[in-house]
């Protein structure tokens, strides 16, 4: 990066805010409780996820952040004995109401998991699977297009364009995770949920994915659960701190990490308790 001449630095624009408060929130959660076989794991969570922002959920192990994440695409439905109460709205529509098809919801709200889990199929089929089952493509040229676009957006195209028919499981860890991201993007969701996506990756792969998240932010709403506070600080605009199933504090990332309101938040962030 070349240094700018002092005189050419003019009109530094300080007017664009980090988070545009004028956009309506993408996901609204009100009084969300979650029970696992009678044992309560989340207590009355009220939260708003803003559009085209990255919101990070932090907190110690077992605090409920992953549980809350999975509420947003109703993945908790597949867990036996798990009950979710309260309202969660996506663009104003309650996702738990009986006339919402969970399959359709999951096409709108995609998910990337902690350990990269590509299907044991070819790279091409991995990305094409979602669009195919939802009927988003008809014909191989449309499928080719979606596969290429998704892989480009995930920053993986150049690395795999020569070997699309090779199994997805033959890629490195970081590449596999990007493949999973491409797979999630391929169905054109509006929200992408990420559950500790970099915890199994080395620092370089992590950095690549963090950059990717920043690029994706333009078109998607992203919610990321992370154990690393530094990652939350780097990657997100809004941060929510969970502790023992409660949402303790929720605010702009820069405030949470420089001057949090709650003592518990500060203690966690500064490493005064685990």
């Amino acid at each position, binding site marked *: 990066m070349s240094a700018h001449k002092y005189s050419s630095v003019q009109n530094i624009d300080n007017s664009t805010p980090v988070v545009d408060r004028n956009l309506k929130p993408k996901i609204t959660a009100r009084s969300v409780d979650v029970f696992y076989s009678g044992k309560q794991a989340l207590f009355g969570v009220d939260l708003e996820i803003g559009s085209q922002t990255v919101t990070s959920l932090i907190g110690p192990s077992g605090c409920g952040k992953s549980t809350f994440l999975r509420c947003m695409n109703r993945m908790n439905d597949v867990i036996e004995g798990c009950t979710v109460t309260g309202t969660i709205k996506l663009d104003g529509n309650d996702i738990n109401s009986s006339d919402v098809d969970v399959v359709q919801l999951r096409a709108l709200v995609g998910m990337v998991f902690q350990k990269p889990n590509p299907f044991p199929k070819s790279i091409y089929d991995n990305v094409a699977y979602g669009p195919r089952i939802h009927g988003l493509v008809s014909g191989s040229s449309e499928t080719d297009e979606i596969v290429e676009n998704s892989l480009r957006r995930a920053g993986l195209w150049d690395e795999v364009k020569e070997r699309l028919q090779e199994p997805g499981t033959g890629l490195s860890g970081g590449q596999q995770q990007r493949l999973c991201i491409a797979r999630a993007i391929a169905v054109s969701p509006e929200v992408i949920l990420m559950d500790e996506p970099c915890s199994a990756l080395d620092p370089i792969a992590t950095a690549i994915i963090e950059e990717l998240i920043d690029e994706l932010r333009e078109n998607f709403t992203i919610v990321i659960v992370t154990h690393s506070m530094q990652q939350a600080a780097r990657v997100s605009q809004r941060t929510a701190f969970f502790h023992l199933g409660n949402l303790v504090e929720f605010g702009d990332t820069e405030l949470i990490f420089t001057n949090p309101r709650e003592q518990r938040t*500060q203690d966690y962030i500064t490493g005064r308790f685990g």
Partner: protein
Amino acid sequence: MSNENRDHIVSSFDTDLHKLDNMIAEMGGLAELQLRQSIQALCMRDVAAAERIVPADKRIDALEEAIYEFTVKIIALRQPMADDLRIVISAIKISSIIERIGDYAKNISKRAIGLDENPLMDGALNSLSRMGELVQEMIKNTLDAYIERDANKAGDVRKRDREVDMLHTSLFRELLTYMMEDPRNITPCTHLLFVAKNIERVGDHTTGIAEQVHFMVHGEMPADERPKEDNSSSTFVTHEDGKNLKEAE
């Protein structure tokens, strides 16, 4: 929020922060001493003492450098967040302020050396001494506030700068009249003016430290305006005032 009994899980982090506190305290103590001794040397007309103060300033500079390096290390290795971050950042700012205080003390001693055995007005020297005492007290309290992370104490220090400022304004007026009385007074009084200004600036800087302590504790600078009573910049003494003053004596 207070973190009095909350130690970091990684105890070496607490060790580092304590070390940082000690370095700031040492540096502040040194500066306080320099200031006191320089004013004393001036008032006592002790050139030898003043000459000792000048090289001692190097210790303060060395400490500032050490604190700077240490804070960079803490940031790189510990990635401090929230209050820890504010503590470390404040330490950088405060150490640079203390270094400037040390420089003012050195400057006062240099003028003391320059003024040598020349007679000086007792009234002015008393006022200077009084100002010095006040400022010294302020430095001590503000550093205590820093170590104790006590924003209220720091707030008190801020208020006391008013007195220093008022003293400075009156001393300014006084010295002007001396100068108007007798042109032979101009040289010594000018030096004394600078000394007074230096002490007043030290008071302002100490207030700056207090504000930094407030930021460290609360995460934001104090909302209200810094109380200023220094009207020396708008103080004008005319020939008539000078005559009146002389008649009043």
